[in-house]
């Protein structure tokens, strides 16, 4: 309820923010606070300093550059939901973002915060993985790019160094792809028990490319590669989709907790993958 006392700073540049992190290994970045503040209030974490990024202008906003969608890490979910460039170039992000939390959460929570928090039950990590997004991090040594596949390391753990900040996310254009974020949660506003982010590109009547990533099926978001391989190259009819979806839980290690037992999650992954692919493939 009452966090352990901490210092608070609100820099206006990424460089200043990184400098604070570099100087103090116990400092922690505050983005929208939708995950961090509950953790602090429950005293599950006790950072020395919170580095609030809200005043760092360069981290806000959406743009299109070199045919890619670039989303600033501090862009809120609500801003993404109302952005026509997101809707045009990566509608899967908009679809998944619409299921995040509730209206209040979406107005405070940020895209980059959600990815950096790397909760395997969060909606956006699996989406970033399915889209093969690139994470752009800034640290004392400058900028570096991290593919989404390398970014999510483990439960609440990313490839970011303690003194790095996720600055922006570059997302390849998937206009024209079929897509679906199929989320299953116990309540209207709740974490996913399991969710499936699916993208299907059709060409010449067949399935030319398939991307499936799973939320809450391991300690990090995972690609369902067996599903992707099984569906790509087929004609994408319901038989092919059902057969492919049967591979959805292969190689996963679903959690076993109050939100769902492992065997139930494995079952859900297969059902939801079939549904997601059915929508994404237009079958």
């Amino acid at each position, binding site marked *: 309820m009452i966090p*352990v006392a901490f210092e608070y700073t609100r820099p206006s540049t990424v460089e200043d923010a990184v400098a604070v992190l570099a100087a103090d290994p116990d400092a922690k970045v505050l983005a929208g606070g939708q995950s961090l503040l509950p953790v602090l209030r429950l005293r599950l974490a006790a950072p020395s300093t919170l580095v609030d990024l809200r005043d760092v202008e360069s981290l806000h906003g959406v743009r299109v550059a070199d045919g890619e969608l670039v989303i600033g890490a501090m862009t809120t979910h609500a801003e993404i939901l109302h952005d026509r460039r997101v809707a045009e170039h990566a509608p899967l992000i908009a679809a998944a973002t619409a299921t995040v939390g509730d209206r209040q959460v979406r107005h405070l929570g940020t895209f980059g915060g959600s990815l950096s928090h790397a909760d395997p039950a969060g909606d956006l990590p699996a989406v970033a993985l399915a889209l093969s997004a690139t994470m752009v991090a800034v640290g004392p040594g400058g900028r570096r790019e991290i593919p989404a596949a390398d970014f999510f390391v483990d439960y609440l753990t990313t490839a970011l160094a303690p003194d790095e900040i996720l600055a922006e996310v570059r997302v390849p254009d998937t206009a024209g792809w079929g897509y679906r974020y199929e989320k*299953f949660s116990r*309540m209207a*506003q*709740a974490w996913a*028990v399991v969710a499936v982010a699916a993208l299907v590109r059709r060409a010449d009547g067949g399935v030319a490319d398939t991307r499936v990533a799973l939320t809450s099926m391991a300690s990090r978001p995972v690609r369902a590669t067996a599903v992707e391989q099984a569906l790509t190259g087929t004609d994408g009819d319901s038989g092919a989709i059902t057969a492919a979806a049967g591979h959805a839980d292969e190689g996963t290690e679903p959690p076993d907790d*109050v939100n769902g037992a492992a065997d*139930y999650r494995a079952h*859900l992954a297969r*059902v939801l993958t079939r549904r997601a692919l059915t929508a994404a493939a237009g079958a």
Partner: protein
Amino acid sequence: MSTTQEQEVGAARRRKEDAHLITGQTTWTDNIQLPGTVHAALLRSPMAHARIRVDVSAARDEPGVVAAYSGADLADELAGLPSAWQVTPDWVAPEHKPLAVDEARYAGDAIAVVVADTRAHAVDALDAIEVDYEPLPVVLDMEQAMADGSPLVHTDAGTNVCFRYADTFGDLDAAFADAPVRIRRRFVQQRLVACAMEPRSVLVAPVPAAGEYTVWSSTQIPHFVRLFLAMLSGVPESRIRVIAPDVGGGFGSKLDIYAEELLAFTLAKKLGRPVKWTETRSEAFQATVHGRDQIQDLELAADADGRIRGLRVDLLADMGAYLQLLTPAIPLLGRAMFPGIYKMDAYRFGCVGVFTDKTPTDAYRGAGRPEATFAIERMLDELAAELHVDPLEMRRRNWIGHEEFPYTQIAGLTYDSGNYEAATARATELFDYDGLRAEQARRREEHDPVQLGIGVSTYTEMCGLAPSRWLGERGYAGGGWEAATVRVLPTGKVEAVIGTSPHGQGHVTTFSQLVADTLGVPFDDVEVIHGDTAAAPAGLDTYGSRSLAVGGVAVWRAAQRVLGKAKTLAAHLLEVSEDDLEFSGGNFAVRGTPGAAKSIQEVAFAAFAAHSMPDGMEPTLSADFVLEPDDFSFPHGTHLCAVEVDTETGRVEIRSYVAVDDVGKVVNPMIVEGQVHGGLAQGIAQALHEVARYDADGNLTTGTMVDYTPPTAADLPSFVLDRTETPSTTNPLGVKGVGEAGTIASTPAVVNAVVDALRPFGVVDVPMPCTPENVWRALHEAQGGAA
């Protein structure tokens, strides 16, 4: 501007309470700021059972700390907490200290307290307390707790059994012998958490020189808090004033005397300063009483046509680690309600109360009756399925006919009035029962992955706890009366002082309507005073749907007394006989003499001035009434629920819900509908969503809103509500109660619907809550899958 309606009772008056509630002008206990206040924070055991050695000395050196104590430090100053309902002569009632002294017995049991200048300092200083925990064996499961050699929650008690209770009515052996149909089921009433919107909070302000105390507490029962603080502290009751200011929900969880109330009182007395403690949401999950938690073993015997011959009920009721105010009585409040609305030849009720290393249980909306209603309504559906009879028809074959009231049922309760036929007819019409059954048949035939289920609940419940004699005969230390005062002030405005203590129900509005009608004064001219033992000294507070059926009748009686006195005085002032006066619209008019009249406001001023009073009449226009209820009242109704069940994922969606309730005469239909809406939400929550779960070590794993999953509006359907009206015959207003009806009725309606959807797959029960996973698992198991 004040307005007058022709008839206040029956009008959907907007609630007087709401303007300040929705504009942030509430007085929650935690909002009250007194100079010099110090703040208490509690250290709670993270272990479910452990021997403890607590050293608080380091905490005393932390910034802002005023005092710090362990349970051992205060052992001589803190009395044990009360349990006021001795259910059997040989019950086991272990000592329950506000701070555990030698052993912590559930995760969340308070073991030390820090008092500091700010809440933050108090919380910070908890980290400096040194505790040695020596783990002791934990017992969480009731059946394991009863087994030989089980670890004991209370070693000194020598047993985990709190009490054993049994009653048999009629010839049970005869009823079961040769019965063509016998159905046995085990249902589990899962443990629930009340989740009141306002957590508990208490502030105690002493006047050391006078030895006086003012206590603000977020409680349903300010009068009992005063009584018990006096009894437990030795401070004269007359020097303790308890105020329940705005109280943000209770649902039974604030019908208790809590450790923190006695602790804050003791600390305020010791330190001579105001002491405040406010619960965190995490503490609300761990340390506020839980509800339900019963294992129900049932057997029903019936004739081949479904006529019920007998019912056998054996309960295990989880007390948790200690007895709170009414803990052992809660399952026994269901003792007489398992027969429901049905006639039968014989009935047995048995209950064993069991201690476990978990948070204590106590009242939770419905308190014993929802558990009973669930059991009998589920059994009626099972009986119907067994005999391939429509569940509504099965109920018709067994229920009490409307011409049979008053009806003394098998467990000895006399149901005052009811018309189950009328409520059921209205509900089936609103629901399109036949149409939905046809759709269900079609979907079954088509093997639709989303199946339709229809659930029935024809409930009754006992409201208005209770005649004092009835309570006394059952071991309760208190009574069931209620008090009211009605006074017309010199300006003609009216104050109604009530002994019930609202925490969201709308007493102020409802009682204003009752008084306005009785005295012929505008609704807006009536103020209702409550929740302060200095202003409303007599009362037994709010629980058990008693406020209108008992307290409302007391208000009405007091108003009638005022009216009688006013009439006598009016006749005196008009120099006519009382028989010549006609009272309407707030005026006493002389029959046949136009213009010769006195308004009640004029009479009130005359009573105040007292210049001319009849011989022997006391000045002022005021009257008290203390009402002893004649009996319970028995609301009833028919609830019908249609669910769609996704057989692939197990998800249950409520498609439609019709509730036709009969709560007797209705004072404010909007408030009644609000109570039904809230009650339905809470009952549906038990059916589909909520459960307090513990891991094997006794840690509550559903200790946040995220994990406990109470439903929001987005999780609930639009309800279709209607009423039939069969007045109660046990009180002159004809009113029954409505506070718990929705909760009692809805849980079985929903679960019956879920099971109905899945019956073709061989499912005969789904454990609550019917989460997608539980539904999927039930399907999986019924189809031979290992789950």
